Each structure stands twice: as C-alpha cells, then as structure tokens.
C-alpha cells in the first residue's frame, strides 16, 4: 500500500484535478482507519512547456490548462507578467478584465449548479434526466450559462480559449452597440439570477458544522475577482508575493495532484470561502435578499457552496451591469509593454477559488520559470478532511451505495473540475467488525 507521508518538493507542477478518482476507505469497529482520495489526471506539464516561451504566448498556453476556466488562467498570467515588467494597465483595461471575468463566473457557476449539483439534490442521475421534470429551471440555467459565454465572446471571440486577452490589455474592444445589447440581456437576467438564489436556498441540504480556514482575496471596495490581497479567516493578510512563505505544495503519492497546505494545515478556497470572507462587499440588494433566505454567512456548512455560487452569479450580473452601463470604446484597448528581466506574481479568484501564478522572465521577455497553483490542488487536503468528518456525521453504518453517494455529494461541493465531480467515484470499502 502506498504510504501517505507528505513530501515537500521544490519544483511544483501543474496537475489539474479531474479525470479518474477513487476513494479508499477502511472502517474498523465503526471508525475510519484509512481514507484516501486518489486522483489520477495524467499530468500535462504546463509549467515546463512555458519555459523558453515568449511572454506574449503565455495567455494562449495557460488557457489550455482548463477549458472551463480559461479566463481565470489568462487573467492571472497577464497580471503576473505585467508585474514582472513593472507595467500598470489602464483603468479601462482593469475594468474590462473584471467584466470578462464576470462572464466566466456566470458561465462556470451556472454549469456547475445545473449540470452537476442540482441533479444530486433533486434525485436525478443527470441534468438530462432532470430536464424532463424541471424544464423551466434547466432552461433558466442554460440561459444564464449562455449569458456568461456571451460576455466572454465579446472580449475573446469564443468562450473556450478566448483569443482576445494580451499582456497590456485586450486585442480588441467591443463596440458600443455590442455592449448596449449585452446590458439589456443582463438586465433581463437579473430576476432569473435572483430566482435561482431563492430556489437554491430552499433546497434541503444536510446539516453540517465543520471548522476550516477560509482563504480568498479581499479588496478594499469590491467583491474580489480580478484583484485583491490574500486573506484568511484566521486574520491572514498578505500579498501574492508572500504566498510561498505561508503555503507549501506537497506531492501525495496516491495522487497525481499536488496538495497545498497553509502552514501545514488544509484550507478552503472557492465560492463559500469567498462569500464567508467578503459578504460585506455584496451590493445591498443582494445582501438583503440573502439575509431573507434565513441562511447566515459566514457558514460552516460546505453544502452551502451551491448557494454561494448562485449568489455569485447575482453579484457578477450586478457588476457586469455597472461596468457595461459606464462603457466607452477606448482609443486603444491595450498599451505596449516593455519586457525586461523580472519576477511577477498574480492572484485572482477563479470560479473554483484562488489561482496563483509566478513567472520569472529574462531581458527579452522569455519565460525562465513558471509556477502555477490552481484552486483544486489547494482544496485537495480539505476535501479529504471534509470526507472524514462528514462520513462520521452521516453514519458509517449506511450501506456502501449510500456512502458512495454521500461522498460524491461532498466532493461536488468543491467543484473539483468537472469530470471528477460527476458520477464516477469508485469506492473501495473495507469493513471490519
């Protein structure tokens, strides 16, 4: 059996967590003696391809890490590279990156809620089966997802691996007419998003009260998407540069995913952590509506992650409305950057949580070294911890199938990249009396 000692390593990799997963569970005398979530996603070695590439190729390369959140990878990379070059983007660029990012939140959250999470709560195998009984709700979800895609397409031409982002800004600025049309669509979607929040709030979720450290960005005036300082529910407040002093990545041999720990302990990133740390940044009407649901945040129930996603769809629509209302076509959608030898850090809030990049460049702007820490590897240790606690609370005496379903539901709260979160979990269960 593979030992699960954690090893500290110096050169990290990027291995997204998805693909095959299996859970090894041993129960002896009503106690969990072993619990190991193994993930095997063949590594694709992105950090290594990046070495020797030019800075302007990076946004197109890192997008391919994830088809569901390419914008997050692009935005974090441009932020880090601009820091390495000591370049400050224009205010227009900053705002439009936020708008671009709103599109990805809406798209990714709507996809997760409707295709992955809701079927669990409503007792269906898949969204396709669910669509027969809940056609209006599924339709609403698909419309929200499409709206998110529309925003991404305006800036990137397509929603998967958009082609519009560059270091320094965007290749292309949408026209006034396009933005006006988008603004009208957003206005119409506002009520759907509100209805989605209220619906999610009504669905019964398992009771759960778990203590964990939340980690997310915080910004002085905004709900964090594209920028902010790194904050923790224990009072942590650092810049992206300081990440490596507080967090470390380890390689658990039972997984191809690297795990990251905060001062040696698991921690949570993602919508619930964000909302827990930033609820005072919600616009008043969204905060009021959330209060009216009777569910209090900060929440220590991981099953409130779906609701947090719905609230963030509302938030992203609200932000996008403001950003589009104040839109004007700039003279040029980017400024030229002058590459130089440097080191830059980027931290943004991907739909699944904090995404951190670090690049070292040479004087021509070629990448000497890259390091990328995706949200899912940050949640790895936390998922195992959560499974442990919540299986005990659920009751280990339940039949195997019920245990497996419960585990899947727990794992899906973290939205650990999509295929991992679907009905795939192989449970290897050993019971000893």
């Amino acid at each position, binding site marked *: 059996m593979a030992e699960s000692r954690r090893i500290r*390593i110096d050169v990290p990799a990027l291995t997204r967590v998805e693909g095959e997963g299996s859970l090894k569970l041993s129960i002896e005398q009503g106690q969990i003696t072993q619990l190991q979530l193994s993930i095997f996603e063949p590594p694709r*070695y992105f950090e*290594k*391809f990046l070495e020797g590439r030019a800075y302007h190729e990076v946004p197109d390369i890192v997008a391919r890490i*994830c088809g569901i959140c390419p914008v997050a990878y692009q935005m974090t990379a441009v932020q880090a590279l601009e820091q390495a070059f000591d370049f400050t983007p224009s205010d227009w660029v900053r705002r439009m990156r936020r708008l671009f990012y709103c599109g990805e939140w809406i798209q990714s959250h709507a996809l997760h809620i409707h*295709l992955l999470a809701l079927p669990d709560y409503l007792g269906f195998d898949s969204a396709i089966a669910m669509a027969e009984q809940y056609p209006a709700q*599924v339709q609403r979800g698909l419309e929200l997802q499409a709206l998110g*895609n529309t925003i991404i397409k305006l800036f990137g031409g397509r929603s998967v*691996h958009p*082609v519009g982002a560059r270091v320094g800004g965007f290749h292309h600025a949408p026209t006034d007419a396009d933005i006006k049309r988008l603004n009208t669509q957003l206005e119409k979607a506002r009520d759907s998003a509100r209805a989605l929040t209220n619906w999610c709030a009504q669905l019964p979720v398992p009771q759960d009260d778990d203590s964990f450290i939340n980690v997310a960005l915080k910004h002085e005036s905004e709900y964090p998407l594209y920028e902010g300082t790194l904050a923790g529910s224990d009072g942590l407040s650092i810049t992206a540069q300081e990440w490596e002093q507080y967090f470390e990545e380890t390689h658990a041999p039972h997984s191809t995913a690297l795990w990251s720990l905060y001062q040696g302990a698991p921690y949570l990133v993602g919508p619930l952590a964000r909302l827990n740390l930033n609820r005072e940044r919600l616009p008043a009407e969204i905060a009021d509506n959330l209060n009216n649901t009777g569910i209090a945040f900060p929440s220590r129930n991981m099953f409130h992650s779906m609701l947090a996603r719905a609230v963030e769809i509302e938030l992203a629509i609200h932000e996008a409305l403001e950003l589009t209302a104040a839109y004007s076509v700039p003279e040029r959608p980017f400024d030229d950057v002058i590459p130089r030898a440097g080191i830059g850090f980027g931290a943004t809030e991907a739909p699944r949580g904090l995404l951190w990049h670090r690049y070292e460049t040479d004087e021509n702007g070629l990448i000497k070294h890259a390091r990328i820490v995706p949200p899912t590897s940050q949640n790895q240790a936390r998922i195992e911890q959560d499974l442990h606690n919540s299986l005990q609370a659920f009751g280990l005496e339940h039949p195997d199938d019920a245990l497996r379903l419960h585990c899947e539901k727990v794992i899906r709260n973290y939205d650990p990249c999509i295929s991992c979160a679907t009905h795939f979990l192989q449970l290897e269960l050993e019971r000893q009396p």
Partner: protein
Amino acid sequence: MSTTVKPRIAVHKFSSCDGCQLAFLNLGGELIELTRRVDIRHFLEAGLDDPDADVDIAFVEGSLSTQDEIERIHRVRKHSRYLISIGACATSGGLQALRNLDNQHDQWRDAIYAKPEFIKTLNHARPIADEVRVDFELWGCPINSRQLLAAVNSLLFGVPPIEERDKVCMECKRQQRVCVMVTDNKPCLGPVTRTGCGALCPSFGRDCYGCYGPSDNPNTESLSKRFAGLGLMPDAVARRFLMINSAAPAFHDAGLIARSTDTGDGDNG
C-alpha cells in the same frame, strides 16, 4: 429520423482540458433538442457513466498519454460504430505533445514530482489515430458547436461529414478582414492553418496561432521565410509552429527546420 430507435452516442475524455466537450454543454437549448434525437449513453461531464456501452458514434477528446488510456481507447473502438476524434489533443496530440519534442518527459516528471515512480505517464502524448482507426476528425482547440452539430447531423442522415481543409486565410479574405500580416507585420499562421474557426484571430486584429492545425498543402516553407522577413529569429519562427499542434507533421517539420537554423543569439522575443 424515421426509426424508433435513437442513435446512441458517447463522449469520452482522455488527456485534455475538457474544452472540446464543452461544445456539447454550450449548446444551450440545442443540447436538450439533441438529447431528443440521440441517446447519450456515456458522457461523464453530463453525469452519464457507461463507458462500455455499444454506441453508434463515439466522440473522443484528449490525447493518449498513459498505458491505461491506450487500453481504454481500444475498448472504445470495439464498442463504437464510428469514432470521431474531437480537438487538437485527440487529432494531433495537442499542446501537451510539446513534451515529445526533445524527449523531455522524464526530466520534466522528475523535476515536478517528489515521487515520480507514482506518475505513470508515457513519454509521448499521442493522437487517437496512432492507436486505433478514426473515422472522422474534427480539428480545433477547441472545436466549436457548429462543427459538432454539422458532424452529428451528417452522420444521422447517413452521409459522411464534409471536411474543412481550406486555409484560415480564405475565410479571412471572404470576410474582407484587414490582413494583420500585411498591415501590422504580425506573424499570422492563417496561410497554413485549417479553417473552421471563422478567422477569429484576424477579426480581433491579431495573428492566427494555428489552433486548428495544418490545412491541406500548407506551404510552411514560404511562410517561414516570410516570418523571417518580418524580423522573427529562427527560434521565434519555430515557436509559431510548435505550439498547439506541434505534433501535426506539417507544423512539426516546419518547426524543427526553423530550429535547426537557429544560431542561438539575437532577439528571440
């Protein structure tokens, strides 16, 4: 369809980013419509898990990069009437095939993992057609929903899908776009890249980076010369070809030729 039995389809994932499968999930209302016409048997992202179901059409995303994946693709082939590879990963090996270039896999793996013995990847990331017969290929990184629906519709009507082999340039000119190579000296791969995206990059004022792979009869030699004329050093020319589709023969060869002329100095940006 006049038959009462709906055609069965499956969507399989190998080493990939999941972006091509999104061509299904981004169909919106048309996805629901599609499920009325076909019976989706296996599609993990949509919550359907039956990898060994016999199907009429299997869509395969991703490259082959582990022993397990090689065994799995043979099972997929056995259970499928038609097998369609979708996207650059499946048709050429994709971005991750960059590791094939200098046989760097082992060094990369050992540099990254504390316990490399647990990482069971193969040295090369390979396209699906290296291992099994592929009936049709959809190129692109990612493919788009239009390509996907066109292929499904053709097969449902029992006709072979139409292959797009023209160059991005043709589409770009048809749309009367301003040529970024002529006006801005940008090293555009449009003259050698397969059409299908709608000339997205030039329409955004930037150069094509070849994500749809090589077109028919790509004249990479003359384009490489043109890039050199724009001031690109050999290493920069090589990087143009060696990116998303570095293992597609036309791009692979053009990249290696450019590299071999590299003197190792000068401005490589």
